[in-house]
């Protein structure tokens, strides 16, 4: 301890400079949104390179489990193709999207606002506000992009809501993470005129430009009907476990600019 204090005292000028520089950088990021964003991007770039290095080391040992997940995903796709007319209808609603495959190189699950980092960036065509899906449903929305990496605002973020609907009748609301169990979500804004059963399937509602309609999200596990407010409070358990994700698809919506321009037109 004494040696550390002696070393600090020997380099007092440098220590003072670094401390004041830290204060100045905090001051800078608090005063300017541009600098805050740029600092976030810089941090993301550095963290991306670091995690890509460690990922390439550990990837080899996870190959067996990855293969298993891919096999299951393939099987589900083949089954969907074999189902016939109904699944064709579901397939056509995916039209207008292009999927960009990516690997998650950094994941966090322990905070109320979790962020993932994917190894594809603007060079691969990734842009801000693109939806991200995995083998078993929605993963999140891209919120920052550098040439080689993308930061994803994860579904495990208490401030993110996803447009979700009942598969059986299309009644839609907003799906939120409850902030504790990574698979426990809450579906809000469903009017009590819509019947709810435990076990009902919840899918993406298709009312946003992030995700196509009909991507399976989870199942109803419990619900309460608030007669005063006129809405159900529905507990939903996700089909997939977001904490074991590695491979994702970033979705480019070809019609987004057209849809956005329509939204901007005021009567």
């Amino acid at each position: 301890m004494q040696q550390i204090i002696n070393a600090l005292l020997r380099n007092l000028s440098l220590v003072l400079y670094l401390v004041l520089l830290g204060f100045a950088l905090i001051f800078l990021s608090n005063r300017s949104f541009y600098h805050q964003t740029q600092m976030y991007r810089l941090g993301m770039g550095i963290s991306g390179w670091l995690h890509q290095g460690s990922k390439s080391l550990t990837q080899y040992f996870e190959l067996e489990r990855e293969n298993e997940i891919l096999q299951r995903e393939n099987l589900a796709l083949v089954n969907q193709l074999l189902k016939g007319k109904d699944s064709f209808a579901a397939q056509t609603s995916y039209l207008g999207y292009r999927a960009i495959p990516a690997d998650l190189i950094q994941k966090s699950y322990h905070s109320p606002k979790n962020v993932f980092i994917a190894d594809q960036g603007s060079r691969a065509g990734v842009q801000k506000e693109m939806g991200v899906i995995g083998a078993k449903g929605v993963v999140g929305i891209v919120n920052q992009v550098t040439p080689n990496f993308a930061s994803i605002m994860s579904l495990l973020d208490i401030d993110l809501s996803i447009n979700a609907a009942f598969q059986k009748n299309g009644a839609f609301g907003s799906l939120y993470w409850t902030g504790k169990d990574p698979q426990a979500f809450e579906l809000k804004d469903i009017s009590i005129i819509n019947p709810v059963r435990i076990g009902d399937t919840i899918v993406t509602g298709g009312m946003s430009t992030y995700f196509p309609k009909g991507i399976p999200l989870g199942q109803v596990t419990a619900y309460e009907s608030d007669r005063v407010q006129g809405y159900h409070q529905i507990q939903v358990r996700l089909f997939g476990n977001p904490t074991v994700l590695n491979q994702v698809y970033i979705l480019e919506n070809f019609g987004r600019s057209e849809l956005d321009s329509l939204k901007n037109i005021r009567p």
Partner: protein
Amino acid sequence: MNRASSRLFARFLCLLILQVLVFNQWVLFGSIFPCVYIFFILSYPFEANPQEVTLVGFLLGLSLDLLTQSPGAHTIATLSIAAFRPAVIAISLGLITDFSSIFSRRIKNLNLFYFIGILTWTHQLIYFTVLYFSGEAWLQILTRSLVQFILSGLFIFLVLSLYSRDDS
């Protein structure tokens, strides 16, 4: 407060007010203006404690940022040149110097030019790097810092010429 400290404090205030009210208003090409306030760091006594100079640099930059509503680039640039100043004194004026400040008549003009030039350009370079904060803007950072360096350098030499140089 002794006489030397009072004089330094008065210089601090004068340069700060002049920078905010006069020099910051002479904007060329959108964002180029002479940074004359750094004359305070350049003219600070050489024998002063380096930590004191660093702290003074931080306060000077912070005051200017607060008074001009700029994001914080002045603070980082001024703090940095205040911290680098002892190394620049050694490079431009020699490792062992007995000059008390830039007002010493015994400093050769070329050495004085190096001293002011290195610190002024470092300041401008850091200032624009922080302002743009993006690797893609390197050409703008270089060109703007060079133009502002020339403009600031001219004004700093003009201010220096107003002072009488002594034999200290």
